[in-house]
C-alpha cells in the first residue's frame, strides 16, 4: 500500500467519490481555486469544475440547509466548514432539520449529507478556531459522528460517509493533516475496496496492562505514550474509537475486561465531553472488571487560549498520559 498524508487521503476519497457518483458535489468557503483553508480540496475544481466544487458565500447556516435540500432532492453533498467552531452558525440546520428528518418523515426523507470540518488545537489559533465540539453532536440522535486518526481511516471512512444515506459529521484534526500513512487503493473493479463500516473502533496497539481510549488527534499521543510505557515494561492497549456515533461499546468493553484499567484521553474540555459517556458505559456494564476507577485526561474547562505556552498546558500530551497511566497502575497494585 502507498504512504500518503491524512490530507491527501481525504482528497483521494473525495476525488474517487466524485468520479464514482455524479450526484456527489462539494460546497464550502474557498474550496475551489484556493483549495480550502487547509488545502484539502486543492486541485479538485480543475477536474470537476465549479458546479461540483462550489465556493459558497460566507453563510454556514444556509450552506448546511441548502445541502440538506439538495440531499432530499437526491444529491450527495459534501460540505466543508473551514473550522469546526463555525458550525455554531449552522447548528439549527443540523440539529433541528437534518437530524430529525428520517425519524419523523420516515423512509421518504433520506438525507445523505456529509459535513467535513477541521477540529482541534495545536496551532495557536485561539478560542474560536481550536475547538473540538464533537460532544454537541454525539448528543443529537440522528447524526453520525466520525473522527479518524489515520490516513487509512480518513480515506476509508470518508468514502463510507459519502455513501451513507444519513447525515454524517466528519471531523478532521488539524494536527493530523500532514501525518503520513498507508491507504487503500481505488480499484476500478471493486468500488467497495477499502470501505470501512461506521461504528467500529480500532485497536491501534495491543496490550494487557491498561487500556488508553482516544480518538482523532489524541490517538497519536496515546500511541506515543504507549511506546514510552513499553520502556518500563507496561503494555498499554490503545483503543481508537474512530466513530463516536454510533459508538462501538463492544470493542471498548472487551479491551477493559482484559486490562481492568482504563484511561480516556480527550482533547475537548473535560465537562460534558464524550469521555464522560465512554466512562459511564464502562462503569455501567463491567464495573466488576475494574481494578481502579476510570480516569479521564482532558483539557481544563476553559476556552482555548492562543499563546503557545498556554495552549501547550491546555492539551493533553504523551507525557501526561504516561504520568497518569503510571499513577493508575501503581494505585491498582
Amino acid at each position: 500500500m502507498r504512504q500518503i498524508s491524512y490530507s491527501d487521503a481525504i482528497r483521494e476519497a473525495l476525488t474517487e467519490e466524485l468520479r464514482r457518483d455524479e450526484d456527489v458535489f462539494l460546497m464550502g468557503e474557498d474550496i475551489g481555486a484556493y483549495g480550502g483553508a487547509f488545502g484539502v480540496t486543492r486541485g479538485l475544481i480543475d477536474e470537476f469544475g465549479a458546479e461540483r466544487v462550489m465556493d459558497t458565500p460566507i453563510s454556514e447556516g444556509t450552506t448546511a440547509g441548502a445541502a440538506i435540500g439538495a440531499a432530499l432532492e437526491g444529491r450527495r453533498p459534501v460540505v466543508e466548514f473551514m473550522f469546526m467552531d463555525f458550525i455554531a452558525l449552522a447548528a439549527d440546520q443540523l440539529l433541528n432539520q437534518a437530524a430529525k428528518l428520517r425519524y419523523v418523515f420516515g423512509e421518504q426523507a433520506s438525507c445523505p449529507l456529509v459535513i467535513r470540518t477541521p477540529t482541534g488545537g495545536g496551532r495557536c489559533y485561539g478560542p474560536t478556531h481550536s475547538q473540538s465540539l464533537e460532544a454537541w453532536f454525539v448528543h443529537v440522535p440522528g447524526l453520525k459522528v466520525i473522527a479518524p486518526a489515520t490516513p487509512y481511516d480518513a480515506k476509508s471512512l470518508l468514502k463510507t460517509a459519502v455513501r451513507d444515506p444519513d447525515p454524517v459529521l466528519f471531523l478532521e484534526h488539524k494536527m493530523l493533516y500532514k501525518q503520513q500513512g498507508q491507504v487503500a487503493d481505488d480499484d476500478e473493479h471493486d468500488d467497495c475496496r477499502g470501505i470501512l463500516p461506521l461504528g467500529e473502533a480500532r485497536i491501534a496497539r495491543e496490550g494487557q496492562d491498561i487500556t488508553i481510549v482516544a480518538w482523532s488527534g489524541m490517538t497519536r499521543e496515546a500511541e506515543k505514550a504507549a511506546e514510552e510505557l513499553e520502556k518500563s515494561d507496561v503494555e498499554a492497549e490503545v483503543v481508537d474509537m474512530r466513530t463516536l456515533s454510533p459508538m462501538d461499546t463492544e470493542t471498548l468493553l472487551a479491551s477493559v475486561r482484559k486490562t481492568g484499567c482504563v484511561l480516556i484521553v480527550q482533547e475537548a474540555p473535560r465537562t460534558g465531553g464524550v469521555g464522560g459517556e465512554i466512562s459511564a458505559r464502562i462503569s455501567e456494564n463491567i464495573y466488576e472488571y475494574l481494578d481502579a476507577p476510570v480516569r479521564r485526561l482532558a483539557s481544563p474547562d476553559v476556552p482555548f487560549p492562543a499563546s503557545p505556552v498556554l495552549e501547550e498546558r491546555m492539551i493533553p500530551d504523551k507525557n501526561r498520559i504516561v504520568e497518569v497511566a503510571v499513577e493508575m497502575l501503581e494505585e491498582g497494585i
Partner: protein
Amino acid sequence: MDENVEYYRQMLLIRLFEQRVEQLFTEGVIRGTMHPCTGQEAVAVGVMAALSPSDYITSTHRGHGHFLARGGDPRLMMAELFGKKTGYSGGRGGSQLMGDYSLGFLGGNGITGGSIPVATGVGLSLKRRQQDAVAVCFFGDGASNQGTFHESLNMAGLWDLPVLYVCENNAYAMSTPVHQALSIENVADRAGAYGFPGVSVDGNDVSAVRKAVVEARARACRGKGPSLIECKTYRLSGHSRGDQRRYRSAEEEQKAWQQDPIRRFREKLESEGFMDPDGTDQLQHEVQQQLEQAEQFARESSFPDPDDLEKGLYATDQL
C-alpha cells in the same frame, strides 16, 4: 367543476379543518399545540393552484393549509394530530412536522425560518437537473427577520436558483405587529437587495396570489432565477392554541373579518354566476362530511407502539 369553485372548496376545507382542530384541542382530545391559518387560506390555495406536480414545497409551523391545498389527505393529517400510527409521521411529528414527498410537500417546520435554506438547496439541485420545476418556500413576516432569510436569498439571487420565496405577511409574528419588527414597510422590497423581483399582493385574493405565482414560476423555469412574493393577509385566529389575543383590539379584528378571503371569494363567485347559495351550502356540507370522516378515521386509528420508539432513526433501522 370550475377551477374557481375548486379553489373555493379548498379554502373552505382549510377553514373548517382548522376550526374543527382548534375545537378538538380545546376539548383536550388533541394534545400539544397547533398554529391555525384561519384567514390565510387564499395564500395556500392561490400558490398551489399555480404549481405543477413536479414542484417542491417547504412549509412552516402554520402549515395545515399549505398541505391541504397541495392535496394532503385530511384523514392522515387528522390522525397525525391525534398522535396516531396512521398519521403522516406515525405520530412523531405532530402539527408542525407532516409531509408527503410524493406530492413534493417536504413538510412543515418547527423553527421559524428553518426551511428557507432547505428550499434554497432543493432549488440548487433542480437547477443542476435543468428540470421544469421550482422549489416554493413559505415563511412568515417574522421569519423574514432571521439570518437564514438573508443568506438564502443572497445565494438564490447569486446563482439564479428556481426558488419562489412566498412570504405570508399576516400582520403579526406571534404578538408582535409587523411594523414593530420590520425596518421597512414591505418584505417584498427586500428582494431588490438580492437582485431579483419582489412583489406585494393582496394575500386575501386567491386570484391575485395565483397570478403572481404563475408569473414567478414561469420566470424561474426560464432560468431567470428566484422571486419574492409577499402575500399581505391577516391571521384571524390567535397565534396558537391558548392565545387570548390581548395585543390587538376587537375592532381591529372585526375590520379584518370584513376582508375574510373566503367570504370575499364566495360573494365574487356568486355575483359572477359561478355559484349560487344552494351550491355553496352543498359544498359546505360535502366538506363537513369529509372532515367528519377524517376525524372518525383518526379516532379509530391505533396509537403507535411504544416499543417502536427507538426505531427508524437511521436507514439501517427502518421502522
